[in-house]
Structure formats: C-alpha cells, structure tokens
C-alpha cells in the first residue's frame, strides 16, 4: 500500500469513527454486559467527532466506493463548524442525559436512539455525497422519533406520531428531490450540484424535505409538541443540533454562491418571514416551557430561512449570505441548547432555583433576543449588514423587520422565563451535572462568537455605539410590552396547564388512521364457483340420469347415425 493509500485509509477510518463511535456504542448497548460501561462512557461518543472537527486538516476527502451507493466523506469549512457545534451540543446533552436517566427503566432504549441520532447527525455533516447525506439524515430523523416518544405518555405518543408523519413526508420529498437532482447532475457527489438548474418542483421538494427538520412554516407542526415531550437533554440536542441538519441540507443541496435562483429565494424569504412572525405568536400561546422554546425555534429558524433565501438570489449574494447564515446558526444553536439546559436545571432543582441561576438563564434568553454584547447582537448585526449590503429590496428588512422580531423574541423569552419559574421538579437528581452543563453552555453562548476569529469582525461592529442603541431599544420595548401583555392576558398569574394542546391537523391524522385501521377484517367470501356448482348439482344429477335412459340412448344413437350419414354423404 502506498503512502497516499495509507493516508486515505487512515482518514477514512478517522472520519468514519466520528460517526461510527456512537453507532458502535449503540450496538454495544444490545449486549447486556456492556450496557453499564457504555452508559458510563456516553459523553465520549462525541469525542472523535470533536477531534475531527478541531484537528483535521482542511478539505479532507475520502471516497469509499463500496459503501452504500458509493460513499464520499470529507470535511470542509462549513462542515467543520457544524461538526464542532454538533459535537459540543451533543457532548453537553450526553452529560446531562447520563445523569438524568440513572434509574429509568427504558434508558437503554433511550441511549440507543440517542447514540443513533448522534451518529446520524455527525455522519450527515461529514457526508459528501447526496445519498450519504440522505442516509444519515434519515437515520437521525428516525432515531429522534425514539427520543420524542420516550416518555410514552399520551402527549409524547401524539407528538411522536406527528413528528413521524412529517418526517416521512420530508423523507419522500427528499427522496424525490434527490432522484431529480441525480438525474440532472448525473453524479452522486455533492460537488456535482454546482451549476445545476433547478426545476421549481425540485426547489419545493428540497424546501419541504429539509424544511420539516427546520420547522419551516407549513411543516412546523411537530416542533412544539416534540420539544415539549422529548426528555430535555435530548430536546437540547434536537433544538441545538439536529435542527441544523436541515439548514446544512439546504446549504449542501442549494449551495449559496454556486447557484442563483430568484424564485427559490422568494419562496424561502417569504416562508421564513412568516415563520419568524408565526413562531413568536404561537409561542406566546403556549403554557409549557418546551413548547414555548419550540415557538421560538420556529421563529428563529424562520429568520435563518430568510437569510438563506437572500443568499439564493444570485451567486454574489450567496457568497455573502453563507457566513452570516452560519454565524446565526451557531448563535441560535448555542443559545437554544443553553435554554434547554437551563430549563433542565430548573426542572431538576424544582423550587430551589437560586436567583443567580435565574439571572443566568436570562443570558441565553436575551442573547436570542439580541441584547447588545450577546451573541445575538453579533448575529443580528451581521444580518443587518448583509441586508444593507444586498441593496434595495432587502435593506428595508433591517429597519423594521429585525427590530420587530427582536422585540417579539424578547417577549417570548420573558414568557419562557415566567413559565419555567413555576416549574417544580421532583428532586435533586443529577443537579450537579445539570448545573455544570448549564454553566458550560452559558459560557459558550457568551464567549463563542467573541473568540471565534471568523466572527470577530462583526463582533466589533456590533458594539459600535449606534448599534448598541439599535440593539437595545427593541429589547427594552419588548420587556415593556411583555409586562403590559401579561397584565392583560393573565391578570391572576399563569394558569395551570391541563388541557391537551392538540392541533387540528393532528386530530385529522388520528382520525384517518383510526378509521382505516379499525376496519374489520373482511370475511373470506365463500367461493362463488363452488356455490354455483352446488346449486347445479341436482340438475346435473337429473341430466345424467336422463341421459342414462334407454330412450335417450336410442334417440342419440339414431341422431348420431343420421348426423354422420348426412355429414359424410
């Protein structure tokens, strides 16, 4: 084997270890003696991925022909960021869940799905061919179902059903889109996509396929119930990392900077904008913390969708939008996961939440709202700059749309804080681990964008004087509005949640499924032929008897004679 060959093999091994380690660990969970050890080592599952993200040289590509339909793995700049982000979020989530599920009877199952979803998440980031991406995407999506439904109560089952339905729709949409893409590119590698002209249908399919994960507007239904039902560490991973897979999918399959597609851009921007507004509104109606965060995610992802849509306009816009998009994604992921970890902490500690902790949770919350000096401020500044740089149709966004969303998000976040303050956990299980995780995540929210070289430029912009003010007033306004709204909406404090939050779509699905499934098994019909024969039998018997009479014999004898005579003569 040549040196180059050895190197390739080595890279292949390392890259596949990133996704393979969690998978192997999941497999090891099947084996009873290894269970305890695997659970103990859970956080280590993310280590290879993190190592790859941090240490791999730039632009490693490996081709493994035999794998699936021709596998290509590699890590590029985007991938590295996503991988690092995912690794971090999963690492925290695994610490948290390890401590949460010490005594759960279904924990093995949970960890199996947890690890599988993790593997899918890492794998899709590393995949460099369409089917590989699709494969890991599907793996992650379906494994996440196991996380959503873990609690097995009615809400969880309903949420799971909805999630699964949308995932299936996304899968088939993606499948179709992939077929169309492969048909037009002729190759399976992601790099072949560059320069392809998209059929409008393909665009829609891709929007749907990844939009399900992103929670784009008509496909957002699963997000709030799922966030609420999923065990919180897993929800953190879901919101902090898995959701990004949709964004990454768009980046991979509609690479900004390499394509231009104005029609698609309009689709994305419109849907994103609507989602940004809708998410907040629907979030405010929720009375459970997870659901509120779900609403926030819908809204934030809507913003990201808008950025992405802007990047689709032409190649130049794409080149500019991509970094902003990534920046925003990193910000949102960290903040959202941090919120979840905080929520987790509140749940676990119950009434013993300290003021410091309450203040701490305001950090990611306000970061989301875009409070100056937070990562949110940096991301929003980048967004504004992008909008301004793109010229006329977009610059309006920065003046009205962004402050409005910031204000709305502030309200929503305050609502969230109000909701979780009431949460009372059962005891103190693993609160240490939870606390550590939360602290770590808070640090990440606070620090990442400041120390990230790529973001440093924007970061410095964001703290420039005017920007500070521009960032501050929506937040302040939001706070005010929140107080007003709270007085109006719940003059007596938050009502206790008991009614089932059920969307009408969900009921419809339930009803159709139930209608079809509970139909009685059709009785096998008695064989018509045999019945008919049975009815014929007496007649047949009579006929045969008649044919046996001498008279008939004589007649037929004569008839035969005559017939033959005539026919032969």
């Amino acid at each position: 084997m040549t040196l180059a060959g050895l190197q390739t093999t080595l890279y292949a091994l390392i890259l596949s270890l990133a996704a393979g380690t969690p998978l192997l660990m999941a497999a090891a969970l099947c084996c009873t003696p290894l269970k305890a050890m695997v659970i103990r080592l859970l956080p280590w599952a993310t280590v290879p991925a993190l190592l790859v993200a941090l240490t791999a040289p730039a632009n490693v590509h490996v081709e493994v022909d035999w794998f699936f339909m021709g596998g290509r793995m590699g890590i590029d700049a985007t991938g590295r960021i996503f991988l690092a982000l995912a690794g971090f979020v999963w690492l925290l989530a695994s610490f948290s869940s390890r401590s949460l599920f010490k005594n759960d009877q279904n924990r093995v199952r949970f960890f199996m799905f947890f690890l599988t979803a993790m593997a899918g998440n890492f794998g899709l980031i590393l995949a460099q061919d369409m089917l590989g991406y699709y494969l890991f995407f599907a793996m992650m999506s379906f494994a996440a179902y196991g996380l959503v439904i873990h609690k097995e109560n009615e809400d969880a089952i309903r949420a799971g059903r909805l999630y699964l339905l949308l995932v299936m729709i996304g899968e088939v949409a993606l499948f179709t889109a992939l077929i169309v893409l492969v048909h037009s590119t002729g190759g399976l590698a992601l790099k072949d996509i560059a320069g392809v002209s998209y059929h409008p249908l393909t665009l829609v399919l891709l929007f749907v396929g990844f939009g399900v994960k992103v929670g784009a507007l008509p496909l957002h239904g699963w997000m709030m119930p799922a966030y609420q039902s999923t065990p919180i560490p897993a929800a953190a991973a879901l919101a902090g990392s898995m959701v990004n897979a949709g964004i990454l999918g768009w980046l991979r399959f509609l690479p900004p900077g390499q394509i231009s597609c104005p029609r698609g851009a309009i689709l994305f921007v419109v849907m994103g904008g609507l989602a940004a507004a809708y998410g907040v509104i629907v979030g405010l109606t929720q009375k459970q913390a997870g659901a509120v965060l779900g609403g926030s995610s819908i809204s934030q992802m809507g913003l990201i969708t808008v950025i992405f849509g802007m990047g689709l306009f032409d190649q130049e816009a794409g080149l500019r939008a991509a970094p902003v998009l990534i920046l925003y994604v990193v910000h949102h992921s960290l903040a959202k996961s941090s919120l979840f970890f905080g929520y987790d902490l509140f749940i676990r500690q119950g009434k013993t939440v300290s003021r410091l902790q309450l203040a701490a949770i305001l950090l990611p919350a306000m970061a989301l709202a875009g409070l100056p000096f937070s990562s949110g401020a940096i991301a929003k500044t980048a967004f504004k700059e992008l909008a301004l740089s793109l010229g006329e149709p977009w610059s309006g966004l920065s003046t009205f749309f962004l402050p409005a969303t910031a204000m709305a998000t502030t309200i929503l976040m305050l609502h969230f804080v109000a909701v979780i303050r009431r949460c009372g956990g059962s005891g103190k299980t693993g609160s240490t681990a939870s606390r550590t995780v939360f602290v770590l995540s808070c640090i990440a929210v606070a620090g990442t964008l400041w120390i990230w070289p790529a973001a440093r430029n924007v970061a410095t912009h964001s703290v420039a004087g005017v920007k500070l003010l521009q960032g501050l007033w929506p937040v302040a306004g939001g706070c005010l509005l929140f107080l007003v709204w709270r007085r109006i909406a719940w003059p007596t404090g938050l009502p206790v949640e008991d009614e089932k939050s059920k969307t009408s779509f969900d009921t419809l699905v339930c009803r159709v499924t139930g209608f079809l499934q509970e139909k009685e098994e059709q009785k096998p019909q008695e064989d018509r032929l045999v019945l008919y024969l049975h009815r014929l039998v007496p007649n047949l018997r009579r006929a045969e008897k008649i044919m046996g009479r001498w008279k008939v014999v004589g007649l037929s004898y004569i008839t035969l004679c005559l017939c033959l005579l005539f026919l032969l003569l």
Partner: protein
Amino acid sequence: MNSGQLLLIAILLSSFIPGIIIFCLPEEKHRLRTILNLCGSLVKISLVLLMNAGIYYGHVFEIRIPLIPGVELLLNGDPLSALFATLSSVLWLLTTIYAVGYLEGSPNRSHFFGYFSLCVTVTIGIALAGNLVTFLLFYEMLTLATYPLVIHRGTEKSLRAGRNYLIYAFSGGAVFLVAVVWLQAVVGPMDFSAAGFSPSYIESHGSVLALIFVLLIIGVGVKAALVPLHGWLPQAMVAPAPVSALLHAVAVVKAGAFGIIRIVLDVYGAHNLLLLGVLPLLAAVATFTILYGSVRALQQDDLKRRLAFSTVSQVSYIALGMSMVDQPLAVIGALVHLVHQGLMKITLFFCAGNLAETLGIHRISEMRGVARRMPLTMAAFSIAALGMIGIPPTVGFVSKWYLGLGGLAGGNWWLLVVLVVSSLLNAWYFLPILIRAWFGKQQGPWPEEQYVGRFETRLMLLGPPVITALIVLVAGLVANAQISPLAWVRFIVRGYSL
C-alpha cells in the same frame, strides 16, 4: 455430458434427492431429516455459487432435451437465472432452519420437508429454465409442490385457501400455456438467450403478439399477485409461517415476478415491446397493484394478512420496473428488487411466525410492547419494515432509488409520484406496527405464551430472521461493492445492452 451440464443437474438434484429420501423417512427420524435438509441446502448453495462464478467468467451451462419438434426442455444458466437461483437457495437454507424450529413436534413433518425440498428444486428449475416450455414445466410443478404446503395444517380454512390457490394458479397456468403455444405458433420456437424475437414479426402479427403478451403476463401475473389476480395470496397466509416465507419470498410470488422479467427481457425484448406499445398497460396494472395492495394492507389487523397485501404491493415494483424496460436503471431497480424484496419479506414473515409461535400473537392489536419481550425479533422486523418503506441504508432504498432514477430517465414523472405515494402508504401501515411493538405498553398476558427459555424464543426460530435482517442491512450498506446483489444485477443488465 460436460461438467457444466453435470453442475446443472447436480444443482437440481441437491434438493430433489434429499426430498425424496425425506419422503421415505419415518416421522420420528427428525435428526436425520434435519441433517439431510441442511446438507442438501448447503451443497446447493455452494453449487449455485460455483455456477455463478462460472457464469461470470463466461462458461456456458446448457442442457437440451428435445421432446417433440419445436418443443424442447432447456436448462440454461445465465446471469439472470443465477440471480434467482442464488436468492432461492440461500433463502431456502434459512427457511429450512426456521421450519425445523417452527414445526418441532407437529405432525406430518416428513411430508412437509419432502415437499419443501421439491418446492425449492422446482424453483431452481424455474430459475434455470432456458425457454418458455421449460419455464412452464417448472411453473406448473411449483403449484403442485406448494399446494401440500399451503394446506399443511389440514383445517377447513387452509383447505379453502388451498383450493383458491389452485384455482388461481392453474387458471393462470392454463392461460400461460395457451399463450406459450400461441407465441410459438407465431414466431416459432425460441430460447431465452435470443433476448427477443425478430421485429419483423411485429409488422405481420402485431395485434396477436400484443394479445399474447397480455396472456403471458396474466399467466405469470397470477403468481406475481398482480391485482386482480392476487386473491389467493392473502388467503394462503393460513399456512405455517415457513410456508408463507416460501410463498412470498423464495418461490411462488418470486417465480411470477421472475416470469415477468423473463417475458419482458428475454421473450419479447425491449425493442419489440416498445414497438408493440403494451408496456403502458403493464405499468398501469403494476401501479394499480402497488397502490391497491398498500391500501388493503392498511386495513388489515391480522399481521400476516397485512404482510401478504404488502407483498402484493411490493412485488409489483418489479413489474413496474419492467414496464420501463428501455431504461437500464429501471431494469436494475426491478431486478434488484427481486432479491431485496425477498430478503425483506422473508424476514417479516419469520418474525410474524416467531410472534405467533412463541406468544400466540396473530393480530397487530395484540402487539403492544412485544418488543420488550422479543427485542431481537422485533429489531429484525423493524429493519425489514424500514426497508420496505425504503429508508436508507436498507436494501429497499436501493431498489426504489434505481426505479426512480430509471423512471425519470425515461421521462416518467408519474413514477416518482407512485413511488412517493406507495412509500408513504408503506410507512403508514408499517410504522404503527413498530411503534406499537416498541413503545406500546403490554396489556394483559400474551395470547398463548408457549416458550420460556434463555433466549426470547428458540434459537432456530431466532437465527434466520436475524440473519436475513442483517443481510437486508448489510446488502444495502455495501450495495456498491464488487459482490452484492446490485453488482450482479448490473452485470446482468450490462449483458442486455439496453
């Protein structure tokens, strides 16, 4: 007689002789019987693999036995037959193991295994048939060999199922016979290796040839369970689980689908069919079957019935792919689905059999929480079911992928719609089962729990589904490798130069 011919004969005899010996064995000698069975199937697998290697390197395997002028028996090993033969012989081994475990202690086992061996002999015969007459010969024999298996339980219900099976199968056989004779009357005797008759006949006998094509498809469509000829299949699920596995995955339905492939590729040939313009008809029937089967499957609460309707639906992918015979990718999809569907469906039936045999579970509504009791079985079931839906990296995805690509290459957008709708329907009827099994809560005791032991069920019952599920997974994961069903199918399709 050269070595190639000897090999062909040995392949047939490797299950025929054990079968005959098993018939003569007394009921009690189950150890000897098992050994015979396993030896036979192992020998068969190795012989088939040997033949595959030979075919790959271009050896000719051919036996001709002339009967009357224009009618001869012809056994011929070509890549396509190797595909089917390998599938059948491998699955036969697993099914045999499974059946040994399944039927432990039930009556009439000698007969059962005797017919079992005959059945696989005949299936291999179908695979190796080199012309329509030979195909017909084994096709009819297949009905005969499977009939005793279908009614093995000997109850009134199984008798009724058997009767319907016979009526369907023999009617189909009769139509097929007429079509074969007619075709021969029109174009003269023809081997499969000719890959289609001369297009000049189309000018002179176009409509007749189209009619014959329809008749031929009806003939094999009965076994391939094309709607409306599928009626026997759901009823036949009263048979023991190994038999269902055999019917759905190894022999009968597969033989029908294989027949469609043969007719389209080797009897008519892509070119002629395009000229005749009958392919849309096949496509329409296949589409309808796919959708109809899925919808019907959705309505069933009986697990095996649901699986049976799922077979109805799934096998038609093959017909669908063959209806776009001018597209090599679609043909690849169809051919590879022949193998893939077999693997997945046999896993499902094994698992269903395990549930029924171990816990007495027959209905989906009884399956709540069963995965806790039988995790491995249900894991295998899940993999196969996900494969049926077409989730990567299972083999089911590979077939669908190629079908879709082929359809698109031929400009058939509707095919994508069909695939999407059917995938959704598949998900709709499989995922609830999985959810119920994995996340449902057990309600009350199992209907008839019969086995309590170290593993969740007997090893002989557990092994085969796990192995096939692994194959489903692995064959998908390494689809692009040098040795995989897909690679072999590509090799086949290369030979046709479509």
